[in-house]
């Protein structure tokens, strides 16, 4: 439904353009409209008519046309076709392809996935509400649990309002096009994750990429834009600008330079959208993310988005910020309006996970210690390079030297992964769609640190990876 909504807003934009146009323009356009009406009524007007083809020729063309197959064939041993099979829960101890391993692959940073309290809360919700919601938020899909979760998230993040989505990916991908429209400008980091890229594409805005975490490059683009604006102030007055960054980049394990970004924000009057899927529940003394980490006021960030699929170990995502900003998504966030709401048991699990986070703020410190330890232990493995900062719970191991092609690099990394997997450490390569990514990251193994991993297990993993690298890369 509401397929026509897009067109409706185009209409709105037209009306708005109408207000801003100079008078001679309007007169000219008025004459044009009269002309078009004349053409329409004169009945000689035919679109798309190419009468130089006889019906028979047309038939022949239709007969001859051969489409491509719907999908090209995929070879049976394509590396991405044959998934690992996890039997049982994907928790700290995990059974992959029949082998018991310690999990260094899932984003279960706080180990809440198989937490009994979380499970009990979900059970209670299940026995009250069942599983599905059978409707979008607008149409009897709003449960008291959703309202509670939104309130709790807003309070936890110390913002006015929060809004939840039923799918992590859809959160930022819906939020961006709710604000940024055709003609607006978005400055975005080259390393931005795929969900951000899709949100930007859906917005049809002007997109300017700056070099990863390079504030000078961002400022260069902002300055260029400023000069552009001075040439055309009328247009500049209605062109919204946004900076979209990640708190902790999932593709690189780097933390964004938030203090500098906030300075640039006020200097160039650009709004900041911050995607915190990896940093929420990880950075900061209370796990509030990168704002807390840097001591930045929440109000300085226009919109924060994160999913509840990593630290909170549930499903879905949320955006938070001032009501002025967030409330708009309740009518304009596509993934919010046009999709069934989050199953209540998943919302209940997220609430309980928040409770646990609030009751044990020490947990974030523990996680940090483990991240540092792992980072140090992985450094200096011959042939492998550690990518990411030491406070990131997701680190990337890249080949120090490429073998020449992406495929053969991937194959080498896969051998390392398999080596470890056979010896009880579950790892995974970071997966990307090679042809879809704007700036395709180099092949890597993504190592995830969680609070459940003991020092012993961290040591074991690190030395196993070293062993694997030595055996595979030599």
């Amino acid at each position: 439904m509401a397929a026509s909504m897009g067109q409706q807003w185009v209409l709105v934009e037209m009306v708005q353009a109408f207000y801003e146009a100079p008078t001679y323009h309007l007169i000219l356009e008025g004459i044009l409209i009269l002309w078009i009406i004349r053409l329409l009524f004169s009945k000689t007007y035919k679109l798309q008519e190419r009468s130089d083809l006889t019906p028979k020729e047309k038939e022949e063309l239709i007969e001859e046309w051969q489409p491509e197959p719907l999908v090209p064939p995929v070879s049976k041993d394509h590396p991405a076709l044959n998934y690992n099979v996890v039997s049982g829960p994907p928790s700290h101890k995990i059974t992959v392809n029949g082998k018991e391993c310690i999990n260094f692959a899932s984003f279960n940073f706080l180990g809440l996935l198989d937490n009994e309290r979380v499970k009990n809360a979900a059970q209670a919700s299940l026995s009250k509400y069942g599983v599905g919601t059978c409707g979008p938020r607008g149409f009897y899909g709003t449960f008291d649990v959703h309202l509670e979760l939104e309130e709790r998230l807003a309070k936890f993040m110390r913002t006015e309002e929060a809004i939840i989505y039923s799918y992590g990916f859809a959160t930022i991908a819906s939020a961006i096009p709710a604000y940024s429209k055709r003609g607006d400008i978005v400055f975005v980091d080259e390393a931005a994750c795929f969900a951000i890229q899709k949100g930007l594409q859906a917005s049809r805005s002007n997109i300017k990429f700056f070099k990863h975490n390079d504030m000078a490059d961002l400022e260069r683009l902002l300055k260029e834009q400023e000069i552009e604006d001075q040439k055309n102030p009328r247009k500049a007055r209605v062109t919204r600008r946004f900076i979209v960054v990640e708190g902790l980049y999932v593709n690189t394990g780097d933390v964004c330079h938030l203090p500098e970004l906030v300075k640039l924000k006020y200097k160039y009057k650009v709004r900041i959208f911050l995607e915190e899927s990896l940093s929420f529940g990880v950075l900061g003394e209370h796990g509030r993310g990168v704002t807390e980490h840097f001591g930045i006021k929440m109000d300085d960030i226009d919109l924060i988005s994160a999913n509840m699929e990593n630290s909170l170990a549930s499903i879905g995502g949320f955006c938070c910020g001032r009501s002025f900003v967030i409330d708009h998504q309740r009518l304009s966030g596509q993934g919010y309006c046009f999709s069934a709401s989050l199953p209540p048991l998943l919302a209940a699990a997220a609430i309980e996970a928040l409770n646990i986070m609030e009751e044990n703020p020490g947990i974030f410190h523990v996680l940090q210690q483990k991240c540092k330890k792992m980072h140090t232990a992985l450094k200096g493995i011959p042939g492998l390079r550690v990518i990411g900062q030491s406070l990131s719970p997701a680190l990337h191991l890249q080949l120090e030297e490429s073998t020449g092609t992406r495929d053969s690099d991937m194959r080498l990394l896969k051998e390392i992964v398999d080596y470890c997997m056979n010896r009880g450490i579950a790892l995974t390569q970071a997966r990307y769609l090679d042809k879809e990514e704007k700036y395709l990251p180099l092949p890597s193994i993504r190592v995830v640190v969680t609070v459940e991993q003991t020092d012993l297990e961290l040591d074991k993993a690190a030395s196993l990876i070293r062993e694997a690298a030595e055996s595979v890369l030599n």
Partner: protein
Amino acid sequence: MKRGPENLGGQPRANGCSFSKHGAGGGLKNGYVRGSAGADTHSQIHRIVHNGGLYKRPFNEAFEETPMLVAVLTYVGYGVLTLFGYLRDFLRYWKIEKCHHATDREEQLDFVPLYQDFENFYTRNLYMRIRDSWNRPICSVPGARVDMMERVSHDYNWTFKYTGKVIKDVINMGSYNYLGYTQNTGPFSEAASKVLSQYGVGVCSTRQEMGNLDKHEELETLVARFLGVESAMAYGMGFATNSMNIPALVGKGCLILSDELNHASLVLGARLSGATIRIFKHNNMQSLEKLLKDAIVYGQPRTHRPWKKILIVVEGVYSMEGSIVRLPEVIALKKKYKSYLYLDEAHSIGALGPSGRGVVDYFGLNPEDVDVMMGTFTKSFGAAGGYIGGKKELIDYLRVHSHSAVYATSLSPPVVEQIIASIKCIMGEDGTTIGKQRIQQLSENTRYFRRRLKEMGFIIYGNEDSPIIPLMLYMPAKIGAFGREMLKRHIAVVVVGFPATPIIESRARFCLSAAHTKEILDIALKELDEVGDLLQIKYSRHRLVPLLDRPFDETTYEETED
């Protein structure tokens, strides 16, 4: 435009024929006038016979035309509301009327405004008046009856306060609970509960990395078997199933032919794919055929290179119209023009067909004739998520290239278990006949409810077998009045207006469920009868003109290219 009833099969007739005898509406729909398309009747009669033969069952779909007086009054209503809106905006500007809406931060007032003022005009002046009819919070299972949280507003719907009271046992005609599988007791929730204890709720990884659980594979095998296709893949959200998989199937140089009323997720997926999009009139096979023919004959714009492939995108049951796709004709066209078919069964899977296998089952067709069988688990199965089924090559390709498989967290295990349990029940594999009975019950409820509403004199849209029943309200003032009056009588209904519907076609929508008993339906019908008289919305003049008159303008040619 006037949309007459159509009766295919028994008395074969095609859609879109224009033995054009324009009714009182005079070609008025959605506020603009279309030329009459009364051209070559001869070839159309030919088509009629031809198409009639495709249907194995009667296809009764009626769209009574909007009465002229109602249309005029509706426009007047919007006119008055708009004028008042401007007046109130003027008063707000001069601070005579209190301004309720939130504003940007002081520090950011010199930024380019986040919203265009015009965008909010509609929200501020029309939506706010009737906002209480949406987002009503509930606090129980969304079954046949539902408990709702009472809320009040002291500032004309700008904010709501919860009184703490619960409105008990409201009859639920709003949830998409077609087969009544949303339950908090019984085998389904017990199965889900067991899996929840074992697996927890999250997965914390994607299918391609470390989130491919044995449960997911079990589900996919079952879904493939249920649909009668070679292979299937499941995703965490129905919306994203469309928006993240269509781009994997088509791209630049491909053409998407999309029904004008397709769901937002299909539209988004089509846009993200980079393919050229052309829109055909809702369920209008003439319009579709013309687009297909033109596309192949003329090729791509400017270069006239042939299209790489053509994908027709349709839904099984349209959620605002209650219409059922003319699948036999679509399949015939798709075969004739060598294009591919993407069928979104969000509202039809489980809800249609003698064995609940959706619109393909309903028409007795072969699932292999549909290239991409998409659907969601949110509705009939009482869970969450979506699936795509089809040939093994298709699913293998998606396992490698689907955006969801690579970047999105996989389905929650207890949700998966709910789906497995409900599909098994529908298929009778749980050893009971509950599944069969529910399908039967839903179809009886649908026919009964539709018949009774029609007899009462309401204008009802859609197919006689569609469990989605739109009841036309037309005027903006009646949207809020109807929603409130029904809630007062303890019946929860969905009301929709612009922009979800054309501006004058505001409506209420009932979703029938197998969980509704005859007693519940009779209570609802009795109240509806009274409310219908009270609000004077029994517009029907029972002028079900036997001719089909859904002309489409030959020169209408919409195209989106990004």
